């Protein structure tokens, strides 16, 4: 099954060397075909596990996109993915590999919740922006540390972001079971690791009654648009992308390379921290709750956001679309589990498959373009859904410093 479908892009690749059509196909159908192959792969797995793939996918689609309630759930699920994804766009464009999203989300959630606990009486129009900013600040700090170490001491950011994730989970457990805990004992076991109900004035208001759609959704979309403008319409954005493409050339051009790297990681962390704040203040429970793990709070958005950013071609605008799709897959995954008994981990496995396929196709696409440019001349550049100049993700510590 997989074989037949993966022949498609290969055919396109073969054709693309000769003409515009193949390149067109590869450009515009690369991502959908990756999705299709992954879904077929999932169907095979469901069949092997004794489930009906058609019923499964129907449940997934209905759970994700069937009706206004499902659509709004998907939008809510997409918010942290989108914000993390946008943060990933910034970091990756600067050629810094931020896999510390999980910890940055948690720190953002913590700082925003702490702010609301300290200033419970502020009016909503001050408190709400304040907690969102506090969240962004919490994530920014947690992103700035690896950024600063990377820029100034060449400490590899993969190492430091992973380690900071491990630190963040313990800090979260400590704060939620200690200084920030809800003091009213509601259990014989003593305290539950959660804050008390946070001030209602800071809650993100529901926009459409009967759904869960809250203010966090338009905020996230606006932030994504803002980051697009930042990256492509400002000189700072140019610096980020330039440093991402070549540090040495940027330094030669007089750009502050170290500061750019630190700032890119800081901004990236701020996006994740904002996601954490929205997770807290857009939550149904109106508190910050921990189950003792980062995933329990973040829902793995720190990792899934990487997938989302990639699927959006490291472009914040496309990341909006991609976050919505992947949000739907996660929401639909639960429905799939209920309908067919196939654990929703299938969706995680499929996300992974999609990532692998997309990066594989990206090479074919790149090569097709190179060949067709050689044939058709430089003017024949189609609008690419994937980044034109995605930096080579040397996750390493800057060989050209």
């Amino acid at each position, binding site marked *: 099954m997989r074989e037949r479908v993966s022949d498609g892009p290969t055919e396109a690749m073969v054709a693309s060397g000769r003409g515009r059509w193949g390149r067109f196909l590869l450009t515009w159908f690369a991502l959908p075909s990756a999705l299709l192959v992954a879904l077929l792969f999932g169907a095979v*797995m469901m069949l092997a*596990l004794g489930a009906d793939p058609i019923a499964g996918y129907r449940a997934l689609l209905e759970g994700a996109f069937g009706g206004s309630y499902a659509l709004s759930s998907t939008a809510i699920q997409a918010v942290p993915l989108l914000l993390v994804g946008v943060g990933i766009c910034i970091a990756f464009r600067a050629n810094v*590999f931020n*896999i510390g999203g999980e910890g940055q989300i948690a720190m953002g959630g913590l700082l925003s919740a702490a702010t609301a606990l300290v200033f419970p009486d502020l009016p909503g129009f001050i408190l709400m922006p304040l907690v969102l900013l506090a969240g962004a600040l919490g994530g920014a700090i947690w992103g700035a540390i690896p950024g600063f*170490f990377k820029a100034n*001491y*060449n*400490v*590899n950011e*993969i*190492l*430091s972001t*992973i*380690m*900071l*994730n*491990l*630190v963040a989970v*313990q*800090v979260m*457990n*400590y704060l939620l*079971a*200690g200084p920030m805990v809800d003091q009213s004992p509601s259990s014989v076991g003593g305290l539950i690791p959660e804050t008390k109900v946070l001030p209602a004035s800071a809650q993100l208001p529901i926009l459409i009654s009967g759904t869960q759609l809250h203010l966090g959704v338009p905020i996230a979309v606006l932030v994504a648009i803002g980051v697009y403008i930042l990256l492509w319409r400002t000189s700072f954005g140019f610096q980020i992308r330039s440093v991402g493409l070549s540090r040495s050339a940027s330094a030669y051009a007089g750009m502050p390379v170290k500061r750019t790297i630190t700032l890119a990681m800081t901004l990236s962390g701020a996006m994740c921290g904002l996601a954490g704040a929205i997770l807290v203040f857009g939550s149904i429970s109106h508190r910050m709750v921990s189950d003792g793990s980062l995933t329990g709070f973040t829902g793995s958005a720190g*990792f899934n956001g*990487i*997938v989302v950013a*990639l699927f959006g071609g490291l472009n914040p605008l496309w990341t909006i679309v991609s976050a919505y799709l992947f949000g739907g897959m996660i929401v639909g995954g639960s429905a799939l589990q209920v309908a067919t008994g*196939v*654990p929703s*981990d*299938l*969706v*995680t*496995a*499929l*996300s*992974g*498959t*999609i*990532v*692998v396929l*997309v*990066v*594989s196709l*990206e*090479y*074919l696409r790149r090569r097709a373009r190179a060949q067709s440019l050689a044939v058709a001349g430089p003017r024949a550049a189609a609008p690419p859904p994937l980044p034109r100049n*995605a930096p*080579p*993700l*040397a*996750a*390493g*510590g800057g*060989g050209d410093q």
Partner: protein
Amino acid sequence: MNQFFTVDVLTTTIASGIALATPFLLAALGETIGQRSGVINLGVDGIMLLGAFSTYYVELQTGNLLLAILAGTATGTLMGVITAFVSVTLKAEQGISGIGVYLFGLGFSSLLFQKLVGTPLPISTLPPVGIPGLDSIPLIGGMFFNQSLLVYLAFLLVPVATFVLNRTTYGLKIKAVGENPAAADSLGVSVALIRWSTVLIGCTFAGLAGAALLMYGGIFQINLTQSEGFIAVALVYFGAWRPVGVMFGSLLYGLVGVVILTWKSLGIIPLSASDLAATAPAVITVLALLFLARRFRQPAVLGRPYEREG
């Protein structure tokens, strides 16, 4: 604190620190070899999960430990074929494809565990084997020479890897491909072939690391690794791409973890500081790197696919 410095406590602390470090070491050694040839594999954690599940499943079905460990290792090799194809042949962005492999391994191993096994059942693990003569040396014997065979294997692989990297033609080719692939290519070294081989070795080690992790706990559960594979990748940077450095990094990480647990059990660390003390391995590793590894340079083309000019 005095209770800590007794022979028994010190011996067991170090011995279990070594055992805890073994999965990190195996995975990080494999990653080192891959990175020396210029290929980053961030999918280690997912491959470890799949390796651990295969080991667990085969052991449950057959009761044969050797077969189980071989199955886990072979799963690593299989994932290596996919990783190498994507990273080397298709020249994909390695950082991202690795995340894909990780998610695939995480999801697929959880899925299979829930559908094929379900209830966590313990399996028998590798027994510790004393090395005759050495295991009776006071202090040292109990610390180092009464471990399971996988632990010996992992630490034996350190000098082997060092030797291969520094003293063999193959090792020279690996480093050449990682430093200057164009030059290596012009000398007739097949960049793709060398990288395929190092990725296969690396992923095989990752599968074995998964088996070692399973042997340590004796049971599988969803997300058994708890990101250990990512920590292993981090330890490669810590070890400055040298097998011995990687070994010290793994040992540091494992030992700090066990020392913290020991201190908690002795009451040296009060309960109130329990959570914060648990951050020690991570914090110490980052700080150590801050002071240690800055002098070392990474392989020049790390993470960059090789495209022949023209």
